[in-house]
């Protein structure tokens, strides 16, 4: 994407998430008012009280869920504000996992992330890095018949990176060849070369068990 297109995307996405937060705020207050009124009537006989109270709790939970999703999407939208910046690899992974979680779940793949306690700073484009990781995830879930992907942040020794651990439910597992043939993998390689990411595969009995991505330097 060109810089002006990215800026447009970021601006529109940020504006939409702002609107969504306003919608959630109205739902939250209306639900809160219902809870207040139920509380005021706590000693009065009230048919279906339990059902009302359960509904209030469910709406509250869903508002929190909505706020979390919109906040993540808002951070993602703002990641295009600075084409190059100091970004924490842990945040990139947390953000990507939360945004691609549903994409994987639709293919019966459980997507998880394991971040490190210490920040691992990279001078890169957060938006491009998230795009590259999402492309990798997409390429793998297409080759998996259910299973799980765990993305771990690594920092050995001083080379920041990621390790993807796979567990496919299909008996033949995922092969490197199957992944490499996908169009998505070609797209990833293009971005990997810009971001200076180097992949290393680990296989067992022909099946792929892990992929390491080393972030060797600053973005080219």
């Amino acid at each position: 994407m060109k810089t002006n297109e990215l800026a447009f995307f970021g601006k529109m996405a940020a504006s939409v998430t702002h609107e969504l937060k306003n919608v959630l705020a109205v739902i939250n207050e209306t639900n809160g008012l219902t809870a207040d009124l139920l509380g005021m009537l706590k000693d009065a006989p009230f048919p279906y009280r339990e059902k009302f109270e359960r509904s209030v709790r469910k709406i509250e939970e869903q508002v929190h869920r909505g706020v979390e999703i919109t906040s993540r999407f808002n951070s993602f939208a703002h990641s295009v504000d600075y084409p190059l910046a100091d970004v924490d690899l842990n945040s990139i992974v947390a953000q990507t996992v939360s945004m691609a979680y549903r994409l994987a779940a639709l293919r019966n793949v459980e997507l998880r992330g394991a971040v490190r306690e210490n920040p691992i700073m990279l001078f890169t484009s957060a938006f491009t890095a998230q795009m590259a990781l999402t492309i990798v995830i997409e390429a793998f879930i297409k080759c998996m018949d259910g299973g799980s992907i765990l993305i771990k942040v690594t920092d050995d020794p001083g080379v920041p990176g990621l390790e993807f651990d796979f567990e496919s439910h299909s008996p033949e597992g995922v092969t490197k060849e199957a992944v490499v043939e996908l169009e998505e993998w070609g797209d990833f390689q293009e971005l990997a070369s810009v971001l200076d990411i180097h992949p290393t595969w680990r296989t067992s009995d022909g099946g792929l068990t892990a992929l390491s991505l080393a972030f060797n330097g600053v973005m080219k």
Partner: protein
Amino acid sequence: MGVEILIVDDEVEFAETFAERLQLRGFSVRTACGGEEALQMIEGGEAKIIVLDLKMPGMDGMEVLRRVKKIRPDVEVIILSGHGSEMDESYVRNLGAFAYLRKPADIGDVLEAVKRAENRLKPI
């Protein structure tokens, strides 16, 4: 009856429902759906605490805050916005905002901020 609170938000549904919840808790509450209307109500008004949104059509919350602090420095301003970065937070605090909450906020957090604002308003 507690001190008067003015809610300034262009989301009328939000402002009115939020006002109702504060009224149930004994506060006297008024609402304004824009910056200009808010400033008219503040000048010579009774409001001691303002709950202010940042993104509004016309005069935005930052400008309202700036002007409020000029005409009524005694008024405590709580920002309640769905928008805003850490940079915005530090900017509005420098302009004199007393607290910064993100929408949708927990009523308990709002009440806590209002209570702290009330304590600041009390003469020593």
